[in-house]
């Protein structure tokens, strides 16, 4: 197995287990962050989340077409410096069609967000990941190219 393949597989448990991610968006010279409930595709190529369309987050996402997300497993203790893993996903965002397949992917992870996802006033956003940046053991950083 390639090293990159092993690295990718090591991300899978974290991406499955964590429910929330920090979403970073940009607009003009400004930046903005939010917490979002996310679900990743099996191959980790895409990350999905839902947002109401009447929000800044939505207008920044559709305005710039790009975003990054941070998914981590910190516990808010000093052990985090040793044990925590933080994954940064960079890429391009698009509004995805709420197909049955994608709804299933999202609702399986967040069954309580079904109404939120299905509302006509919310959008399913797909982050097509260009690159994962994985930080662990305090200062070890590895990049995984997904293109």
């Amino acid at each position, binding site marked *: 197995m390639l090293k990159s393949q092993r690295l990718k597989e090591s991300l899978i448990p974290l991406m499955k287990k964590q429910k929330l991610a920090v979403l970073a968006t940009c607009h003009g010279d400004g930046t903005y962050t939010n917490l979002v409930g996310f679900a990743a595709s099996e191959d980790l190529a895409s990350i999905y989340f839902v947002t109401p369309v009447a*929000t800044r987050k939505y207008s920044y996402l559709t305005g710039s077409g790009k975003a990054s997300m941070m998914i981590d497993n910190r516990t808010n203790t000093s052990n985090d410096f040793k044990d925590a893993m933080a994954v940064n996903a960079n890429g391009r965002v698009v509004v995805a069609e709420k197909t049955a397949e994608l709804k299933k992917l999202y609702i399986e992870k967040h*069954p*309580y967000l079904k109404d*939120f996802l299905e*509302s006509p*006033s919310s959008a399913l956003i797909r982050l097509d990941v260009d690159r994962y940046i994985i930080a662990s053991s305090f200062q070890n950083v590895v990049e995984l190219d997904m293109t």
Partner: protein
Amino acid sequence: MKRYVIDMEEIETGCLELIGSKALSLHKVMNEDLQVPPFTCISTAAYERYLDSTHIRDSIIMELSRKDMADMRWEEMWDTSLRIRNMFLNTAIPGELEKELLSGIRELFCEKPVVVRSSAPGEDSGNTSFAGLHESYVNVRGAGPIIEHVRLVWASLWSDAALLYREELGLDVGKSGMAVIIQELMEGQASGIIFSRSPNDNEQMIIEAVHGLNKGLVDGDLEPDRWTIDRKDGAIIDYQEPSGREKIVHLVEKGTVLESMPDELAQMVPLDEREVHRLYQIAMILERCFEGPQDIEWTIKDGNIYVLQSRPITTGKDEEKVWYLSLRRTVDDLQKLRRRVEHELIPEMISDYLALQTVDLQGMDDSELGREILRRKELYESWKQRYTDEFIPFAHGMRLFAQVYNDVIRPSDPYEFMELLSGSGLLSMKRNEELKRLADMLRQDTALMDRVKNDKAEGAFLERIEDFAQNYMHAGIFKSREELVGHIVELASGPDRKEAVKRGREEKYEERDKEGDKGEMENRFISAFSDSEQAFARELLDMGRTSYRLRDDDNIHLGRIEHQYIVSLNEARDRIAIRVQGFDTNINANTNDYSENEILKALNDDEYLPVKGSLKREEDKALDIKEHVRQIQGQPAGRGLVTGIARVIVDKQDLFKVRSGEILVCDAIDPNMTFVVPLVSGIVERRGGMLIHGAIIAREYGIPCVTGIPDATGIIRNGDELTVDGYLGIVTIRRK
């Protein structure tokens, strides 16, 4: 591993958390060598597993996070409870768990009729005994239906009443559980209740009895025979015969029915003295056993007395909560209330305001006018009280319909039932339709529009304005013809509301309309009942519609009475204005600033010059410019998504400032204010609820509406750009 089904013989004193208070009480009753109907218990472990394996726990957390419960009105709690109940209704018990429960039940009960009762830990402890917080179902047969009802009992852990008493119960998603008792139904010849200590006299005990099952007695539908007993020696101090033993509760295929009592039985007292004495003895035993006064349900079958349940006597201390619980009425009770509201109270109210209209206020001298003002105020206050006492409880008719509709149809949207109630010909809608017709006249005839704008209305338009004034200008809103005409001109200047309201990305949404029109929905509802039950289903639907309609209409009638009171005050203000200006012509007598007290003083004393009050308007509040609420969550009360400019209503006069397409932001809208709704593109309201007036009218017009936004008129300013997300219940505020 914790057990899911625990039989009555296997119960141990230490397992309260697993079997709940009622089951433990029954166990203690058995230990006193008293008879209880055979029962088994579905433990709280089964509830926990259901909650976790179906993710309902997470959904309840989401539901409860919508708004701080302390800020919720009871109507919002009812809504929250309805949505949670719908989660349970639409989520089957996972296969393996269901198999285990079925195997535990099937052998014991086969097809015997049972009662499925709640048994929450702590529910009936000495500190937290509140009758009727959770559900029980009488006469359920077969393992499958029993399991279905277990789910409903689980859901009732989150009933509106339980949410109301959440602090007393310590209700918590993470900790609270619900066990369920499945108890063989004893179809006794006589049944009743015992208060081992009378609420009115510590030395006495009360025994009440009816023929047949005690359901009618517990629900308040039947008047019982009543014995007052001396607690010292069991002597009968008093016996009260009911005014009539007309009805009896019988078992039918599913549930129970209230039927006419056979004449022969109606003549008979349900208990003899020996039985009364035996019940007294049982009550004293149980009081000793539970170390406190008991509220006991019992039945007598074939000469044996069975204790159905025993719990500490309920003491309602919080009047508001007790009042709320009193709103929950049975169908029979609601029918009586409907007859009273529809055929007595509303005609009486109409006759009252018509009589007031004929009084010649101008012909009265000042002191007569003063007395007339007080008489009108008293009349208005007495109608407001009757509104609280009788009209509001009847509004429960639509809630009862909602529950039955959801039980039989199990829709994904718990408010689907509203489709069957809307369009019931609300008075406020009739008023608005007439306003629309008047606006259409102007819209179609620009020359007429110009003449009306120049105060030169004439012909048919003017005649219809007069007709409108006769029928609808009594609601305390339009103070003059000018205000009315101004509103119609504004209506005519905006888009014709026949056009669909902008509905966000509606095309991707599964609209309920697609499920069929109202007729089809109605058929689906009726045909969900067996042939013999369909008449009842129709009756219930009719009652729901009447309740929906009258809830709105009675406010219009009440508004007319209020209007007559205001008219009398205005007459007095006009007189006082002349007096004040006569005294000093430099004074601009804005007589609206005089309180009723000052007006009355001036009417009774020719020399008195009234003092102005200082009426502080909400908008005078200092605004914190550093903090700005940008997005806030309430209840989605009318579907759709719209963006527009806010018009904040602080005073009723602000309604006349509303311009077409604006978003109405108000504290609490009532049907006397809803004439403005055809102008607006969305509604945001502080008062929460799905069945409140704002939500009802928004649905009638298909306008996005969010209710339950705390301090809506404080956090939103005129001119803010608002997005009202009526799907998710979110309001986004952009300050320019």
